[in-house]
């Protein structure tokens, strides 16, 4: 079998960038996207400047993937944004932006990926939620709502896409050293960590390991599941 084709959203920085490196090292043909250009390069990596919620740009990207590779094996819906703020201080523009990127983006990418994957009757979709959902973190109402929606999408897509040989699962990391939490006070991070069974910050490799499991061909009977890291 040819090297798998893996699409990862939000590859400019953070988890997405790490996952792109990880799957390139494993020999995958990696396609990535982000709103802003990436400042790194790698042989075998193709980048698109596309907002995950921009239907035209996303469809154009998938057209190119179909023309170039004729298939897609894996989709990792990593792109996401957060805003830590009390609900009474959160403008609706922020709520809309979070829901658009995190929920609409995940939906749109999954829809287009499934169309391509169903041709080969094989596919793996991995979504990103957060421990903020089961922990019901105060100060993150819009973010938690969006990441709860991602879990719900995972459940329903798993059922709708199973007959095409596509699994849909979800990983929910805890705090990691990424831009997403750079402005969160240390005290708040510590309070989250205290609620985990294993009270430490997560690492990129912890996330990659979980995604690896969902992507394995042998994981074809695992679908509709969410794994929260750190024992939440």
């Amino acid at each position: 079998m040819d090297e798998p084709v893996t699409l990862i959203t939000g590859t400019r920085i953070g988890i997405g960038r790490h996952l792109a490196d990880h799957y390139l090292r494993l020999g995958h043909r990696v396609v990535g996207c982000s709103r802003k250009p990436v400042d790194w390069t790698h042989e075998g990596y193709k980048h698109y400047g596309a907002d995950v919620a921009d239907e035209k740009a996303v469809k154009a990207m998938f057209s190119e993937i179909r023309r170039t590779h004729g298939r897609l094996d894996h989709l990792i819906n990593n792109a996401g944004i957060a805003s830590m703020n009390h609900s009474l201080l959160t403008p609706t523009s922020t709520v809309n932006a979070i829901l658009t990127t995190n929920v609409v983006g995940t939906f749109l990418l999954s829809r287009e990926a499934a169309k391509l994957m169903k041709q080969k009757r094989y596919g793996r979709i991995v979504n990103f939620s957060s421990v903020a959902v089961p922990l019901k973190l105060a100060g993150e109402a819009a973010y938690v709502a969006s990441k709860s929606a991602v879990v719900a999408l995972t459940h329903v897509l798993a059922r709708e896409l199973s007959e095409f040989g596509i699994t849909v699962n979800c990983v929910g990391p805890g705090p990691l050293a990424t831009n997403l939490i750079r402005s969160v006070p240390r005290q708040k991070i510590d309070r989250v960590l205290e609620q985990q069974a294993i009270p430490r910050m997560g690492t990129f490799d912890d996330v990659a390991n979980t995604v690896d499991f969902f992507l394995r061909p042998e994981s074809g009977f695992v679908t509709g599941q969410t794994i929260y890291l750190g024992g939440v």
Partner: protein
Amino acid sequence: MEQTQLEARPDVPQHDVKQVIELIIDNVNQLKDTQGLKAPAQLDSATTLFGGDGFLDSMALVTLVVAVEQAIEEKFGTSVSLADPGAMSQEHSPYRTIGALADYAVQRLRAG
């Protein structure tokens, strides 16, 4: 590594509904051959696809619509989405007949 900034497509030329009808019929016939779809021997724009006495169940409808989207992209070089919120309603569904689906596809092509 290459980077591509994707832009909206230029104006799409006018397309003939007849061409799209033929394309839909081709795809129905392909699904008959490859997936054992049970469809009438004679297919034309008035043939009911979905709802009423249509021959597609909801999963076959999904498969046909996705196949038609891809065939349109291959033929016209333009990516269209034939997703529609009225899909499952009987009266105004763009999926009720081959002709309705062709009209809808051409409308989407023209909208770019």
